[in-house]
Each structure stands twice: as structure tokens, then as C-alpha cells.
């Protein structure tokens, strides 16, 4: 397999996100539609059912640097959330506490990250954690 360059990989992800071909439980798109470098992205995660996150929609900001997809994007929660891998002051997802980022592979996408964050929320240890008031931001 040849290595698809950063920009064409991001265009593929953008098209998938725009056409809504991904799963319903998350969405993502460019933060600025004229950002020709395609660096800054917005994402949303729908809280998993049977948890304290049920029916909540979480906003996250993603930053795909020059080395994406060889290196993972930086992710930060905009909406307040109580999760072990999320820094409670800044909302940043901490690399060493989130397995998907720690063992990042080139084949992973922004969608992988959003869906895996949703799985974190649904973990038995995390699903009943007390959550901040809905609608508050970091």
C-alpha cells in the first residue's frame, strides 16, 4: 500500500463527514470552510445510552498538524465533561490516558477518535461518573 499524503487523506475524511456517510453517533467538519491547510476541525459526540451521558451532545475541537496522519490530532473538549482522560481545567484529552492516541496508527481517522471517546464514556467505570451541568463549556 502506498502512503496517501496528508491533504488527500483529510479530503477523504471531509467528504465522508460532509456526506454523512459515517455513523450517527458522531460528526465532524472543518472549523473554517476556507482553511486550505485543513488544520482545524470541529467534532460532536452523542453521549452513549444507559449512561450519565445519554442524550447529551459534546463538542470537541481537533487540530490536525503537519504530520497527520503519521501523528494523531490534538483533541480538546469544548463542552464540559467528567472523564479520566480529559483534563478538568482545559478540556484537553490527555495522550497518556487515552489508548487510541497512545497507540496511534496511520490508519486511524478522526472518526476513530470520536467513536473511541464515546466508548470511554460508556465504560462501566465511567458511565455513572457525576457530570457537570449540561451546556457548560471549558
Amino acid at each position, binding site marked *: 500500500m*502506498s*502512503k*496517501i*499524503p496528508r491533504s*488527500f487523506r483529510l*479530503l477523504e475524511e471531509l467528504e465522508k463527514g460532509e456526506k454523512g456517510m459515517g455513523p450517527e453517533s458522531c460528526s465532524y467538519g472543518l472549523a473554517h470552510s*476556507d482553511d*486550505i491547510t*485543513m488544520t482545524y476541525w470541529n467534532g460532536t459526540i452523542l453521549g452513549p445510552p444507559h449512561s450519565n451521558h445519554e442524550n447529551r451532545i459534546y463538542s470537541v475541537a481537533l487540530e490536525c498538524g503537519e504530520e497527520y496522519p503519521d501523528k494523531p490530532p490534538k483533541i480538546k473538549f469544548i463542552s464540559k465533561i467528567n472523564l479520566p482522560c480529559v483534563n478538568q481545567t482545559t478540556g484537553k484529552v490527555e495522550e497518556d490516558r487515552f489508548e487510541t492516541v497512545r497507540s496511534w496508527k496511520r490508519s486511524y481517522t478522526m472518526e476513530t477518535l470520536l467513536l473511541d471517546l464515546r466508548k470511554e464514556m460508556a465504560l462501566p467505570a465511567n458511565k455513572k461518573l457525576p457530570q457537570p451541568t449540561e451546556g457548560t463549556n471549558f
Partner: protein
Amino acid sequence: MASLPKRIIKETERLVLDPVPGINAVPHEDNLRYFQVTIEGPQQSPYEDGVFELELFLPDDYPMEAPKVRFLTKIYHPNIDRLGRICLDVLKANWSPALQIRTVLLSVQALLASPNPNDPLANDVAEDWLKHEDEAIAKAREWTKQYASRK
């Protein structure tokens, strides 16, 4: 990495030894399917004084699948969107393996010479182009000056 198909090697050699006037395409050293491209704006078009940067990638299925091409330089054109994506039939439904990197880049250059606002990708630009063609052309010139490098 799998070895590079003979066809890609031949195409690359010819692009270097016998380049198309006004078009330059060089593969990246660490990815021989990924080309850094420049295209000179065609004469008598609003892009004539500019040199535009593009990137081109040959997917695994090339030549069964078309190359992927994108503008890196901002450009005001009804068939090129704000992310540099190009609406061109030979890059999608009318691709044929008889086409090559050089013919595709020539088609892109021809698209600069004859914009087609009736089949737009950038809708706002196309609307301008159809309603106030003179103003649109002036804007295309202005953007060329501002964002493209000089010949």
C-alpha cells in the same frame, strides 16, 4: 513499500526529460507517487501572470483510477473551490487509463483558460461569473496577483 509500477517510472522520467511548457511536476523523494506541481496561468486569461502550486497523488489503483489533484494556491475560479478541489470530468467520470499525468495537468491548465460557470464547484464564484463577468475576471486577476507567485 511495494515497488513502483513501470508505467509510473516511465511517466516520471518523461515529465523530467521532456517537460510540458509551463508545467512542472516533481515527485517527493520519500513518496514517489506524490508530486509537487506548478502550472503557469495561460496567456490571455486572468491567471496569465501567475504560477500556481498544486499537489498530485497517484492512488494504488492508478491507472485504473484517476490521479488526485488539488490547488495549493488560492484561486478565484468557478470550477475550483476554496479548498483547491477541482471539478474536471477527466478526474472523475471521464477518466481513462489512456490519460497520463501530463494530459491531466494540461486539462487543468486548459480549465484555467476556459472557466465553465455552468458546471460549478464553487457556487458563489460561478454566480458572480454569470452575473457580472467583468467583475469576476477582475477579481480573478486580483487574486492571482495576491496569492500566486510571479512568472
